[in-house]
């Protein structure tokens, strides 16, 4: 009984912090923008708004990367960006040949930059990581899923589907499940990490504001933000890496 009450109380506390932190007065209920063919157009306001914020920041960062960029004397930002590009290019080249790598490279960089920025946006208390909404991560995962088929069919034609029957035709259900599991795990891994990080931020803030005897709250919160930054980069990297690996496997030449 006591444990349940305590749980309810602390849940209420987290929601209270969540509510108090909503200093931008972003509505918590979905926007209803009518419907198309009976399908309602409902949007989650905070997800959409912070996606725009993240997009704006990525574009701003891109602007700084490119500004003053030249061949002989790279600016600091340009050098940093080129290091990231080199790193990602190395990952892509490890998984597929150069021509295929060229085709998906833009996608890979965008995944990395955008997911990293979405994750980091969520570190600012009062703001929400768009990736802490499963719809965002699902959208990204679906893009990877579609690219898998696109690249597979483009480079192998109809033979791409032969891999469902390998090593034996009766593995068909398992291989189909395996392919379906890819986008689902991609989406939920990123979503779970970011949602967890967000809930921990609220919980630790609740410790500071709500329960005076837990004076470790502030330190813990700072430590958690540092860890959150680390997790943000790692999850973006994992998502990008798995995207490269899945697409690489889909369009790999048969041995």
């Amino acid at each position, binding site marked *: 009984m006591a444990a349940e009450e305590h749980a309810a109380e602390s849940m209420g506390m987290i929601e209270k912090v969540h509510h108090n932190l909503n200093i931008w007065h972003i509505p918590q209920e979905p926007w209803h923008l009518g419907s198309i063919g009976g399908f309602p*157009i409902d949007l*989650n306001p905070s997800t959409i708004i912070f*996606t725009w914020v993240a997009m704006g920041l*990525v574009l701003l960062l891109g*602007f700084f990367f490119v500004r003053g960029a030249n061949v002989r004397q*790279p600016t600091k930002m340009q050098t940093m960006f080129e290091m990231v*590009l080199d790193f990602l290019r190395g990952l892509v080249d490890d998984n597929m040949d150069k021509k295929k790598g060229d085709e998906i490279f*833009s996608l890979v960089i965008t995944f990395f930059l955008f997911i990293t920025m979405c994750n980091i946006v969520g570190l600012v208390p009062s703001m929400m990581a768009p990736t802490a909404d499963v719809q*965002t991560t699902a959208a990204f995962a679906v893009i990877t899923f579609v690219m898998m088929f696109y690249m597979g069919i483009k480079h192998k034609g109809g033979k791409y589907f032969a891999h469902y029957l390998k090593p034996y035709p009766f593995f068909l259900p398992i291989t189909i499940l395996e392919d379906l599991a890819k986008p689902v795990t991609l989406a939920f891994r990123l979503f779970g990490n970011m949602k967890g990080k967000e809930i921990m931020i609220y919980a630790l803030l609740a410790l500071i504001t709500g329960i005076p005897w837990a004076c470790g709250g502030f330190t813990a919160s700072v430590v958690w933000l540092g860890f959150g930054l680390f997790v943000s980069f790692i999850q973006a990297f994992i998502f990008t890496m798995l995207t490269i690996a899945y697409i690489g496997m889909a369009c790999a030449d048969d041995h």
Partner: protein
Amino acid sequence: MLEFNATFFAQLFHFVVLLVLLRIFVYKPVLNIIEERRKLVADNIASAEQQRAEAEKLKAEYEAEMQKAREEARNIIDRATKAAEEQAQEIIEQAKAEALRQKEAALSDIQREKDKAIAELRDQVASLAVLVARKVTRDGLTVEAHDRLVQDAVKEVGQLQ
């Protein structure tokens, strides 16, 4: 927490928009720059290699020429040394011959002077003898005194030899 609505499609749209914008405004310029730099570096390396090969060729040529020049110099020095030695030998021999010649000339001079002196002395002795004889004949002379006189004169002349 896991409700799906149109946000999903909005996020797909957002991603595609961002991809297109970044591709146009960021990736293209930066990748072009990277490509240009790669080309620049490759060109530099190629030209450096070419220049190095040329430099090595030049170096080999210069070394060969240097070797030739050194040999020529050695030949010239050898020849000069040999010529100098020969000249020195010649000068020494000439000097020796000259010395010999001068010595002989001196000796012959001495001999001539001596002969001349003896001849003169003989003349003088003769005239002296005549003088003495005249004096003796005018003043008178004992036999002993005459003898002694003659003896002295002969001794004197003998000592002159």
